[in-house]
C-alpha cells in the first residue's frame, strides 16, 4: 500500500513538472530571463532543466506556478485584480 502511495506521489510530481514546463514553453520568450531571488537569472531553457532535475530552483518555480494556478482556481486572483482600477 505504501509503495502504491509513493508511486502515485511520484506520478503526480512528474505530471506537475510537465504542466509547469508546458506553461513555461508557451509563456516565456527566449529573449527573456527570470531572476529568482538569490538563485540568479535564468533563460527558459535553464529553467526547464532545473525543473526536470527537481533541484531547489526547479521546486521553487513549480511552487510559484502552483500557487498562481490555485489563486486563479479559488477566485483570489480575479478578486484582487478587480480591487484596483486602471488609470
Amino acid at each position: 500500500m505504501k509503495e502504491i502511495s509513493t508511486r502515485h506521489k511520484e506520478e503526480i510530481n512528474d505530471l506537475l513538472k510537465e504542466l509547469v514546463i508546458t506553461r513555461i514553453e508557451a509563456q516565456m520568450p527566449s529573449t527573456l530571463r527570470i531572476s529568482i531571488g538569490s538563485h540568479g537569472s535564468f533563460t527558459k531553457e535553464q529553467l526547464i532543466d532545473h525543473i526536470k532535475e527537481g533541484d531547489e530552483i526547479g521546486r521553487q518555480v513549480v511552487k510559484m506556478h502552483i500557487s498562481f494556478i490555485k489563486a486563479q482556481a479559488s477566485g483570489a486572483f480575479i478578486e484582487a485584480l478587480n480591487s484596483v482600477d486602471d488609470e
Partner: protein
Amino acid sequence: MNKGLIITLPRYDEVTEYISQFSKEILKEAHLRGIPLKELRDKGCTRKEFEKVAKGLNYGLIVLNGHGSNTAIEGHKDQILVESGVNEEILRDKITYARSCDAGAQLGHDAMKLNIEGCFIGYELPFVFYHDAERETNPLKDNTAKLFLEPSNAIPISIMKGNVAEQAHENGRKLLLKNMRKALRQKTSDSLGFAEGLWNNYIGQVLLGNPNASLYNL
C-alpha cells in the same frame, strides 16, 4: 531618530545591477524632498560600513537592495550586512524596506521583536522579476523589468512622501495589481507569465512591526 535615508546599491551580477539601477527613482525622490541620503555602493556595501552609518547617522529609513535568505541580507558579493542572531537589532525602531528574497520570513520578524516605532517591509518568498536579455546593458530601458521593479520602488518613495508604513505597503501592492492588469491587457504570449511573477511578489510582500511608522514621526 533622524530624518534620512541609507540605501545599499551593490552591483556585481545581473540581479543586483538591475535593482541598484532601478533605485535611481528612490534617490531622485530623496533629492527632491531634501532628505539626507547615504549611499553604500558596490564594495562599500559591507557589514562594517553599514553598521557604522546605521549607528552613526541614525537615519529613519533604510533601503536594502541585495540577495537575501530567511535569515540574512547581503551587500557586495556574499558579504552579509544584517543577520538574525547577529546584528538584526540594528533595524529596530527604523523603517526598513528590503528588496531581498525571503528575509520577511524570519529576519524581519527577529528584527521587529523588541521594536516599538519602526517596521520591516520585505518578502517572505523569493522576489522575482523578468528582464529582457537584449536590454541588459541599459536596464532602465527594460520595460519588462520596469513592470516588476517600479512597484517595489513605490514603497520607499511613498514613505518619503509622508505616508505611513501601511499605506506605503498597500501602494506597492496596488501597483503590482495594476501591472498585472496591464500585462494581461497586452494579450501577448508572455502576459500570463508576467502576471504570475507579479502575483508571487504580491503574495510574498509583508509588513511587520508598526503599521503607523512614519519617517516624519520616528
